[in-house]
Every structure is written in structure tokens, then in C-alpha cells.
């Protein structure tokens, strides 16, 4: 019997953001835009809420994987041997066009082997041979994106938390001691990341030798 992963349904506001947002991306032609809309509707591909624990979270005494709110969604699908994803951000946005936290928008369209690896990891979980590594209870999949720890992983929470422990299934990392496509407990996963987090803490923050002001740039370019 294969592992059962439950599927997420997007809210109307996220659906609207996808519908209005993907057309702005040159990387996605009309066919790919339609594909991303079908992913959003749930008829193809995957929809994963994104969490981004970082360096402080995996240090001793840190909040671990459960200390953050969702930062958005990743919608992804395979397309003719390739892979495409739309990243939906819901974080607050600063700058000249600020947005309040919780406002969904398509922030990014990604294509290539990095997204393919994520889809292959989900496919690997569906293989019957994997079932023995998991509880028979259905799991809800989430995505861990940890760029400061060079790791992305599927985070599988049992639908009924008391029936089984959560599982972390990394699919891409630069950390040599962390094995991809191998189920880890949360504590084991954090323990594998901790030395890299501790090493980050041992470095001084980069200090730059100078900083040209925007006004200086404008002056040098004649604006």
C-alpha cells in the first residue's frame, strides 16, 4: 500500500491572485499559464504551503520547524519532461508598493531541474516500497524552504498528529551530512542542519567597504 498524501485547496483570494498574476510572467507562455491555473484549481500538479525556518530556529533552544506562519504557496507541475512552479507570497511587502501580510500574489515563476527534484520527491513518496517507512495514517504535505541552510524538504504532518510523528523528506541540499530522499524525524533533521547554523553564527556579518548612495548613482548617470 502506498503512502497517502492529502491535497490542499486554495482559497478564493489565492485563486484570484494566481488568475491575475501568472499572465504577467514572460517565462510562462499561454499553455504554461493555463497549466498553472489547473494546478491552482487542483486538477493537476501539487499545491504546497511554504514554511521557512532558518538559522535561529535550528540552533539549540530555537523554535524548530513549528515556530513560523506559512509564508505562501508553491504550485508546481511537470510539463513534457520539464517542471514549472509559481511561488505565491503572502508575506508583508515593503518598498514603494507595500502589501500587508496575508495578501497573496504571484511573486515568481520557476522552471528547471530544481522544481523537477521536488516533484520527483513527491513521486518517490508514492512508491509502494516507501510505505513501510511511514505510518499508515494519511499525511498532509508542506514545503520547507531554507535558503540560509541550503536545504529544501517536504514536511509531512500526520492528519491526526497523535497517530504518528511528523516526517521530513529532504530533496535538495548542499549539506553533506543530510541525505536526500530519506525520511528523517524532525529532531534528526534539525540535528543535521545545526552545525551549519552554528557555523553561520561563528562568522561576523559581512561588512562592506563602501556604499555609493542612490543619489550618487543618479548623478553619475545624468538623471
Amino acid at each position, binding site marked *: 500500500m502506498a503512502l497517502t498524501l492529502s491535497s490542499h485547496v486554495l482559497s478564493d483570494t489565492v485563486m484570484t491572485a494566481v488568475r491575475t498574476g501568472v499572465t504577467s510572467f514572460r517565462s510562462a507562455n499561454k499553455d504554461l499559464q493555463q497549466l498553472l491555473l489547473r494546478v491552482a484549481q487542483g486538477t493537476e500538479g501539487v499545491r504546497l504551503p511554504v514554511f521557512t525556518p532558518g538559522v535561529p530556529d535550528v540552533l539549540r533552544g530555537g523554535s524548530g520547524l513549528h515556530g513560523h506562519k506559512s509564508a505562501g504557496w508553491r504550485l508546481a507541475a511537470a510539463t513534457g519532461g520539464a517542471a514549472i512552479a509559481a511561488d505565491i507570497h503572502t508575506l*508583508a511587502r515593503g518598498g514603494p508598493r507595500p502589501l500587508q501580510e496575508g495578501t497573496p500574489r504571484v511573486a515568481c515563476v520557476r522552471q528547471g531541474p530544481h522544481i523537477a527534484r521536488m516533484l520527483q520527491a513527491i513521486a518517490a513518496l508514492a512508491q509502494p516500497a516507501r510505505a513501510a517507512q511511514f505510518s499508515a495514517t494519511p499525511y498532509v504535505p508542506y514545503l520547507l524552504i531554507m535558503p540560509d541552510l541550503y536545504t529544501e524538504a517536504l514536511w509531512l504532518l500526520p492528519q491526526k498528529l497523535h497517530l504518528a510523528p511528523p516526517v521530513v523528506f529532504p530533496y535538495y541540499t548542499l549539506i553533506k551530512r543530510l541525505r536526500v530522499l530519506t525520511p528523517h524525524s524532525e529532531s534528526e533533521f534539525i540535528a543535521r542542519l545545526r552545525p551549519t547554523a552554528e557555523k553561520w553564527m561563528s562568522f561576523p556579518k559581512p561588512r562592506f567597504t563602501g556604499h*555609493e548612495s542612490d543619489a550618487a*548613482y543618479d548623478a553619475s548617470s545624468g538623471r
Partner: protein
Amino acid sequence: MASQFVSVPFTNNVQEETFWCWAAAAANVFNSMLPPGSPDVVQQCDVVKLREGGDPCQNKDAYNAPDAVSNAFSDLNIRDGYPIGPSFQVIFDELSGLDRQTGETKPELAEPVCAEVDFGQAAHVVAISAALVDDQGTQHVWVEDPWPGAGNSIEHTYDDFVSNYSYKGGDGSTGVVSILQRAVRL
């Protein structure tokens, strides 16, 4: 409004060590500005060696440490000015080859730009190889991230790139992109 798109050729090799994003981005920028077939290609460990000395090509682990991409650009003699705050106009001007003295655009002056991303306790460096202002006026950039490396296309809205690259940031008060570093051809 008509859309405007600018780009430069770019090869985005993956960073070879966890803390070598700065060396990878600098080597990728340097190599992407070389003429095709040039023998002057640099490796990431060559960039680290310029900064740290020693022999990082033989013992990468011992030299696995972060640094500022501006320093690497200086060592490679491709630094154009000091780091500058994030600005879509700067990115667009650099990618289009704007001659800041004459106001003309010249293909031989078109260069990628590096951005340093501040994740709080950690930093990351990416390059930008293309920019678009679409017909609605929305600004986009193509991010060349040495963490996922070659073959990946990342088209990002500029506003969310600066504010929340990789779903980081959060309170909206400060963006995650701290500086841009312009490049100049040898």
C-alpha cells in the same frame, strides 16, 4: 505601454561549497562576460584563492567561509563602483549597457549585476541576468541563484525579490536584498 526587456548571456554554475555563494556568483559573472572560448575562465576556488591565499582548490572544506561579493569583484578586477542600494533602474541600466557618461546604450557595456541577500544571521549572493518592464508597468528580474545552479530559470517580480526573496523577510519594513554590486568587463 510597450514592454521593455533586456538580458545578457549567463551561465549559472552551482556553488561548490555551502558558504561559497559569493565565489560562485563572482566566478559566474566573470566567466559570463568573457568572449566565447576564452581561456581565462575562473573556478570558484580561484576566486577564493585570490581572497584568502592558500590552496582552496585542493582543500575546499578548509576554505568554506562567506565573504562579500564586492571583495571578489575587486580581486577579479571587475568591480564597477561601490555597492549600491537596491534599484530596478540600476539593474535595467546595467543589463542594457547604458553608458552613464553619454546616456547611450552599448551592447559591449551590458553586464549582469549581483545582489546580496540578507537572511538575518546568514547572507546569500545571487546574480541578475535579465529584466523586464511588462506592458502593465510591472518590473521583473531573472535571478541566477548559485544554490540551485544551472538550468533553472527564476523570473521574479522585482518588488517581491527585493522584499521577500525565497519567501524570507516578513515584516515588510526592510527588504532582504541589501546591496547591488555592478560589474565591469576587463
